[in-house]
């Protein structure tokens, strides 16, 4: 129930950005990712995940959170260069999956319009 409400609220925010502020889908997505990364940097986002589970971890805002988290973790281990090497560490599965499945879909399918 909490997951439904929190996850739904994040989606409503996205919809409001598109309908109310007339942001493009790309701008909306970037806004949510950046918001997630700021909340992640402040350490708030993980509390939200603990509270709402998949409701906070599935939306794109968690991608921003994970980017920051990976960068911070790696920075602690290896110093400032870790910000660069760690940023895609946690999110690499998601990014690789997007590229590989995107590629496969493009090879196998033809858009219908």
């Amino acid at each position, binding site marked *: 129930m909490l997951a439904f409400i929190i996850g739904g609220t994040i989606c409503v925010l996205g919809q409001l950005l*598109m*309908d109310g502020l*007339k942001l*493009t*889908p790309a701008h909306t997505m970037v806004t949510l990712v950046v918001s997630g990364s700021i909340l992640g940097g402040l350490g708030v986002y993980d509390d939200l995940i603990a509270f709402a589970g998949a409701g906070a971890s599935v939306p794109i805002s968690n991608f921003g959170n994970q980017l920051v988290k990976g960068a911070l973790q790696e920075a602690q281990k290896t110093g400032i260069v870790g910000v660069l090497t760690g940023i895609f560490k946690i999110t690499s599965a998601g990014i690789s999956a997007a590229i590989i499945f995107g590629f496969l879909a493009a090879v196998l399918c*033809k*858009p*219908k*319009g």
Partner: protein
Amino acid sequence: MLQGHQTWVFESKPVIIGSAAIGGPFEAQGNLAKDFDLLHGDIWLGQDSYELAERKFLEEACETAIKKAGLKKEDIQFFLSGDLINQIMPSSFTARTLAVPYLGIYGACSSSMEGLSLASLIIDSGFAQTALVGTSSHNAACEKQYRYPTEYGAQKPPTAQWTVTGAGAAVVAKDGEGPHVVASTIGRVIDMGLSDPFNMGAAMAPAAVDTIEAHFRDLNISPSHYDLIATGDLGRVGHRIAADLLTQHGLDIPVEKLTDCGILMYKESQPVLAGGSGCACVATTTFGHLLNRMRKGELNRILIIATGALLSPMSYQQKETIPCIAYAVSIEM
């Protein structure tokens, strides 16, 4: 001959001796399916890109119109065409296939009536005996050009319109059997400051109203002169705005007489949001459905007001508003 400020009256009444409409699968499920000469089951037409498919639609429309006029390609003296793709590619490539003297035009979705006006002018002035007018649009190519590629799956608001996939063409001649083009009102560019490319109907409605008013003022006639007055393609949203504006301006057109090509094209059950749009919307509705009704004797005098939103992807990115235009063409049996 110029009458009033902006209306051409064609004294020799050029004749539309042949016309054709070609459509895609979505149009085949629509209201006007039986008025198309050919309907395709897919939107690729065996081509490698949507743009090439659009060219194919236009080529077929031109070939069919020429054939129905009882002419050969060589009999066409001038070809006028426009579409929505960068640098009107489908039109120019069709002109390459036809290999007749060509005038490329751009009036966005109003291209069909801009072309018909100019073709009638050419015939009326005696500069040619036969001219061919064509125009096309393609849903997927147009989305790619102006909005987002459909594969991207971006959401659309209910005011958005569905671009017709297809093409329409008409052969205009000095003599022959068929509906006559009697007058054309050339519109002014009207920009009411709207900038939402997902609500073109509202942006174009004032342009349609301006041209309709000019038409009746210049010719000193009333709406009762016509059996049908069809704007295109304002869709449901723009149609209502246009009807309200006309009433406000004291030009009362009975509800049953005023219609819109964007509304006529599709069934209410089809997911087209506010209605049809695109160059092919007015072109296929007029050159197919409406001219067929005239030939059957159901309509005697009609006024087609094709509207065009003259935005470009560049002007949209630079946050410009949408200038709009409308051309009114009066056709009599």
